[in-house]
């Protein structure tokens, strides 16, 4: 069913009784050409591009719970391509371009909202690091602007310019960045993949891999054995647990990242703003909630909940940089499990096992990557070669010494 204004009008006039399920609920077949393990944003996007762009047939997405229940279901929805390193920037710029055409591609409104991201700098060194990054962005074809204090004051008069501990010196602005409605991204990809014949199978947990002579022949699931020519794991948050079933240890740890949303408010904050001297970033959702977050809790966890020190740290950062939000109330806090990699950058790669592919290690930046991750993963699955924009996102990069470490903190996942 194609969505259109006319369709809504028609349904509205006839009691909204004609809406059909957005995706089918098929039983799994005995075998597929491609099995994508994980019905999150990346898995569903992979299915979509594999079917639509690369002409893949006979594809299934297996999801342990309900689709979109992983990190795409709980994140702060930021979309941007403001990286500094060559291993990352072209990939994220590709992603941003895909975001810009997503609604038309999917016939689904994921509410991509390009209201910009402003990274504040509070020292000359930070400003210069942003300049370096901004130039790398421009070189990749992205947009970037370096704002001075006066320009920031004009754009965001509500920031703390009067009594600040760490004065705002400059800011890196990417106007094309913004936010999107996270759940809708999963639903839109699922709907499109389904329309292209992909079987989306919910409540189907992968319990093991079927291996023979070092090759992966398929997966054992809670709904029985399913064979596949190619098995593509895409389960960020559970990567270690799933890949352990294939005997692999990964350069990944699981950490909790908390996020917060306030009560709904009339428009207050123009785009995404990040504080450079504290752990705080914020945007405002279409519904009016301030959506904000900060750093990881700092310890390994699969608990999907965090603790108070980080909540307080984030809010004090917020109060420091925008003291107008004091009287807004925090409505909900939640924690997600992050695949924290050893250099803060992800993996889209073959594994050492034939027929088994891996996509993960997205740290807390997976949402913005969703389209490009799906695209590049589909490319890898269809062609068995890395997409040029994901060519450094390899599992062997630590052996070779080719880290993609944007923050420069080394092999300590809780610092990325």
């Amino acid at each position, binding site marked *: 069913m194609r*969505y*259109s204004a006319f369709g809504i009008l028609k349904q509205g006039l006839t009691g909204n009784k004609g809406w059909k399920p957005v995706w089918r609920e098929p039983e799994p077949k005995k075998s597929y050409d491609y099995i994508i393990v994980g019905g999150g944003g990346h898995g569903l996007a992979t299915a979509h591009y594999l079917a639509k762009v690369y002409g893949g047939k006979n594809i299934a997405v297996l999801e342990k719970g309900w689709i979109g229940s992983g990190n795409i279901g709980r994140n702060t929805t930021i979309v941007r391509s403001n990286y500094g390193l060559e291993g990352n920037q072209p990939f994220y710029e590709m992603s941003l371009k895909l975001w810009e055409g997503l609604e038309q591609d999917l016939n689904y409104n994921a509410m991509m*909202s*390009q209201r910009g991201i402003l990274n504040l700098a509070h020292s000359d060194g930070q400003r210069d690091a942003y300049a370096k990054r901004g130039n*790398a962005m421009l070189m990749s074809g992205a947009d970037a602007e370096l704002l001075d204090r006066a320009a920031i004051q004009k754009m965001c008069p509500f920031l703390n310019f009067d*009594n600040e501990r760490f004065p705002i010196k400059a800011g890196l602005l990417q106007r094309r960045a913004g936010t999107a409605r996270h759940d809708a991204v999963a639903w839109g990809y699922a709907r499109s993949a389904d329309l292209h014949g992909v079987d989306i199978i919910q409540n189907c947990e992968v319990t093991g891999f079927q291996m023979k002579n070092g090759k992966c022949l398929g997966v054992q699931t809670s709904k029985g054995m399913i064979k596949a020519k190619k098995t593509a794991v895409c389960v960020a948050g559970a990567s270690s647990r799933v890949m352990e079933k294939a005997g692999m240890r990964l350069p990944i740890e699981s950490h909790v990242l908390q996020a917060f949303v306030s009560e709904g408010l009339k428009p207050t904050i123009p785009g995404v703003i990040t504080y450079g001297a*504290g752990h705080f970033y914020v945007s405002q959702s279409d*519904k009016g909630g301030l959506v904000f977050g900060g750093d990881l809790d700092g310890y390994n966890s699969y608990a999907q909940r965090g603790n108070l020190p980080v909540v307080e740290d984030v809010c004090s950062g917020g109060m420091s940089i925008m003291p107008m939000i004091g009287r807004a109330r925090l409505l909900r806090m939640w924690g997600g499990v992050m695949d924290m990699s050893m250099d803060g950058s992800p993996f889209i790669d073959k594994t050492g096992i034939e027929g088994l592919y891996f996509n993960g290690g997205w740290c807390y930046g997976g949402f913005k990557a969703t389209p490009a991750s799906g695209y590049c993963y589909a490319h890898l699955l269809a062609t068995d070669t890395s997409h040029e924009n994901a060519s450094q996102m390899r599992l062997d990069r630590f052996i070779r010494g080719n880290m993609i470490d944007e923050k420069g903190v080394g092999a300590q996942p809780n610092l990325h």
Partner: protein
Amino acid sequence: MKQAHRINGGLVNKSKPIKFTFNNKQMTGYEGDTLASALLANGQRLVGRSFKYHRPRGIFSSGSEEPNALVQLRSGAHQEPNTRATVVELFDGLTSESQNHRGSLDFDIMSVTDLLSPFLGAGFYYKTFMWPKAFWEKIYEPIIRSSAGLGSLSKLEDPDKYDKGFLHCDLLIAGAGPSGLTAALAAGRAGARVIIADEDFLLGGRLLEEEHTVSGISGQDWVQKSKDELDAMPNVRILTRTTVYGSYDHGIYGALERKTDHLADSGNKPRQVLWRIYSKRAMICGGATERSIAFPNNDRPGIMLAGSVRAYATRYGVAAGTNIAIFTNNDSGWQTAVELVSKGINVTAVIDPRDTAPRAHIPGVAMIMGASVCDTQGRKGLNRITLTNGQVLNVDCLAVSGGWSPNVHLTCHQRGRPIWNDEIAGFVPGGNLPVGQSIAGASNGEMTLGAAIKSGHKTANAIVKELGLSPSRSQAPKAEDEGFAIMQYWHVAGYKQRAWIDLQNDVTSKDVKQSQAEGFKSVEHLKRYTTLGMATDQGKTSNILGLAVMAEATGKTIPETGTTIFRPPYSPVAIGAFGGRERGQHFHPTRLTPSHNWADEQGAEFVEVGNWMRAQWFPKSGDKTWRDSVDREVKKTRKSVGVCDVSTLGKIDIKGKDAAEFLNKIYSNPFAKVPVGRVRYGLMLREDGICYDDGTTARLAEHHFVMTTTTANAVLVYRNMEFARQCLFPDLDVHLISTTDQWAQFAIAGPNSRAVLSKIIDKVDMSNDGFPFMACSDVTVCGGTPGRLFRISFSGELAYEVAVPARYGDALIREIMAAGEEFDITPYGTEALGVMRIEKGHVTGAELNGQMTAFNVNMNNMVSVKKDSIGSVLSRREVMVADNQVRLVGVKTVEKTDSLSSGAHFLAKNDKPTTANDQGWITSVCYSPHFEQHIGLGFLERGHERHGEIIRAWDGVRGTDVLVEIVSSHMYDPEGGLQRG
């Protein structure tokens, strides 16, 4: 305005009238009122508009679950949006305004959206607003955004203060209703350290709102008696106006105490205090929240929760209507009828879908069994209801009870899952409570007063025993078990009109059904697709209704359909409270150097360096720009002598027989054989082979080294050294202590530095042979003050650093300035320091940014292959030492008048700025007074072999593009003769 709805009785103080305004209308209430009770007393029924359809909304409940009666409280910078009128204590001069309407509250032009509701069902926005593409950003989204949200922030700095604190107890009791009070008495009498907290401003919970007898006296009297006893116990702390909002690991609870919110003037004290409570045990006595029934047009002002109608009458002395009908599927609604009638309030009828009435007779009240409400009238306030049996009743208030949901939230914050209980038709805690937590009373599904009190008593006594104390011998207070039978009856189906489930977000039973039809059947999908339960009331009154309607639509039971997870906070908490006092200048501590006061007297400009404030430059009269000051400081230092406070550098005392061996493992270059009295430059790698910190380390004695670290890395280096000491080499005899704050340290640089210092240092042979480059020594200064002297140079000049205990720092800088006067000594700040180190080619954090190897900074010969030091193995990985790696270079502009900027990238002369053409970047720049042009440092592919080449420094974000010559990074005095001289 007369309080037309005020009746006799209640706990308000009628001798203390309080004036307040709603939408600029003057009204009066009494001390003890909430804003909601006072509005009702004044007959104000319409108080707000709903989120999506802008439907008229009235007060729905009497507690923190309120979805409708949200106001903007106070004004100006104190404006507080989305405040529940039901929990605002009335104070003199209170001002409040309704929100979310365009035009007046009565004539909201946005209510036109209600007419379009057939086209605005669940998820409509995902299916539209896509054509044409450009319209989304420019037209659709701005419209959606401007209609989103409810109240608004003032956009001014929050003028109130907040604070935080830490409390400790044996037992935290969350909730001071009958079970909580009983528990506090039992535990308090046994001698336990008890904290009892309640979000209300009075203790007592339902005993304030209902008529009961406890231990032979009225419930309200029993509450007072209990409070008096608890007040007298030194081991019990009562926190009213305090919401326990979250349960965290290991018995830590978060609580928010509203200290001055109920006062017209805070008296400059914090508005709220956020407590972190460390408890050995905790008891949740959170009671239960009533819910509604989904029937057609059930959202009009005047349609309220039955228990709240009772609470307004009993606690506040307010009749919520003049003609009240009660619609209930359970016995508690009948109790409401009885109590209202006993207060002389006119109850027209009790309507109950059940066949048999739980009571024989209530005087003057029609008992309509087997029927439901199937329609209502009254646009801005209820005036009529229609029943399924065709009866029409003229009422202005409909009190609805769909049953009570135990408040299990705090049991779920650590991902515990509640379980369904058919008997009470509600979720009760499952077996997986957080460690140390117990639950009692209605929040545990013990719905009657008698059972609640008994469970409070029993649970507290069990906890007392676990704590190793003896329970007191007192018995549980006696109370009756009232009826609570309920029929699982959730919505009145089969009618065309909408039936609201989520009143604030305008989610109706039709939306739930549509969500199911489109495949969003999981509870989480339902919530996300329809926004059910996502409003500021967090679905307290709506979640279970939604779940029940979904269960019916899918043909499953409620437990099969599931429940959503409760996350903190229990009720929303001001962000300001979480931030506490860490705001403005006090966001982080400020560290001052020993010469700070002196520098301030000199008029220095200061700059934040981490938490430190350092002098950036020292303006003199005649300086037109900061550059004038910096240039002068550099020139005078290079020509004669300058002094700079370098106390911020990290300093670590390293002592022990194995100190040298330890340093040999920590630094990549050899340290085992540094002679006593000598300083060595050291390079530190991370274990992944990346450069991490550098600095000089002095051997003051056989077993004593003093390490300096960069200002930024002092804490990190210390931490990593402790790791190496305790975890990697636990048997080395080596001991660390930070002495960063212990020493005031000044760099004295320039050709005359020796002459100046000779006047300061006692009895040291300062000659080049007596105290050569890289020498160090314990000394005394100015006639006996113990100090340290190092001959090290960051500027490239003949230079020293002298250190004295920090309390002498202020005196020493003054002495140095006096001693240097004859040489025209200049103080210099961090800018001049930076200029001189760039001229000299020393790297700092701009170069050692955590991504660079020793190879990149041309110091690969400093990574010894003859020993195993931290990071040495992994520093040799193939990509890290590949030929095409970037290498440290110096740059000079080709045109002397051009400027350079840090962050510019290197491009070949004719290359376009693309990722593929990117050859490196500039890390540091300055105007060099020595070379009289801009110079810089940077990283360039194969840069070490490209000296003399002319390329471009392209800075797109700043709009500059200049030609530069690549040179060696050692630009000033490359042979080092000056610093050795």
